[in-house]
């Protein structure tokens, strides 16, 4: 699965969880500061990513996922 595919999947999830337009979910964006996705929504995003991409994202890892790129790279590395 390419990084582009992961990004598209993640954008769809963020849109579903937090109502944010999928096209604004871009690699350099910060979840909290740019996209206004708070820490509780992040938990839902992470859980949906686990289901969609078949990865495990432990609580300890979630706090390191500050930008969209962090999440995409983590998923790509752990699929």
């Amino acid at each position: 699965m390419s990084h582009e595919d992961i990004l598209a999947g993640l954008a769809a999830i963020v849109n579903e969880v937090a109502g944010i337009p999928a096209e604004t979910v871009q690699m350099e964006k910060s979840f909290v500061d740019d996209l206004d996705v708070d820490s509780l929504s992040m938990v839902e995003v992470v859980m949906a990513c686990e289901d969609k991409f078949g990865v495990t994202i432990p609580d300890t890892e979630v706090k390191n996922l500050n930008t969209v790129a962090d999440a995409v790279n983590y998923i790509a590395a752990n699929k």
Partner: protein
Amino acid sequence: MSTLITPVAHAAAGLIGLGSYRPERIVTNDEVAVRIESSDEWIRERSGIIERRYATAEETAASMGAVAGARAIKDAGLEPTDIDVVMVATFTHRFQTPSAAAEVSHLVGATNASAFDISAACAGFCYGLAIADSLIRAGSATHILVVGTEKLSDFLNPDDRGTAFIFADGAGAVVVSATTTQGISPTVWGADGSAMDAIIMEPDSVQAGITHEPSLITMQGQRVFRWAVGSMGDVCKDALAKSGLQASDLKAFVPHQANLRITSAIVKHLDLPESVIIAKDIEYTGNTSAASIPLALDALRSSGQIKSGDPVLLVGFGAGLTYAAQVALTP
């Protein structure tokens, strides 16, 4: 070999009375936000809470529980002396012993009742319904008072961003009795003590006695959110399946009022029809742990949104970790 008499069982058990007590003092988000450098908007966004109630210094979990209990007994059309068992679900009773239930039974005049507390945090009320149902159908009791009560404001750290805006005070109670048809479905319940530290009062009371710091509640919010959202959907589906009802039969979904964000996430997983009312009592009540479900039930019934006989899906979940879900018919 001796054999003992098997108690005469009751064919069925159900809820026949409901009562609650909300402290008078309203505490706004603005008041709570000051010490945690937050805002009304952030609190509403984060939890759904608009305001909550705190008890007075003189009130206690037991005194509030007794008011709610007396109201439930009256609602049931019974006298306090008709009650066979008083169970109080709480973790904010001010004594390790004697139990809150002993005190509540004395305060309400339930002089014929046995009394014990249930320590299952926010799952305590649903645990209580499971136990009451079992006792009645086994023939050990005919009328049982189940109370959920908390004075969480006594154990709150007003500077803790994770909890200061969430927890509040209040009490709710039901009378569970022998009925002609079953009004409580089989409970789906469990616990996970490996996650003891997820929601815990620290320091422990022995340590607190040595260091003279108060034991206050702490919570790993995201961890608990993840657990509740990840697991309670399936627990609810299981309870519904075991009740013999479909989601479309439900009049209301009344989860423990932990956080409106948790409620919304569980509702998404459950895919409930639009016709099912979702309890949002947390908005004006805060998170009252064991009291939250009976308080929410009473609010729904008082407003006419649910009527006697309406099926409601209940789920409690919290410190332990513990959880319990069942369907009950509105008293």
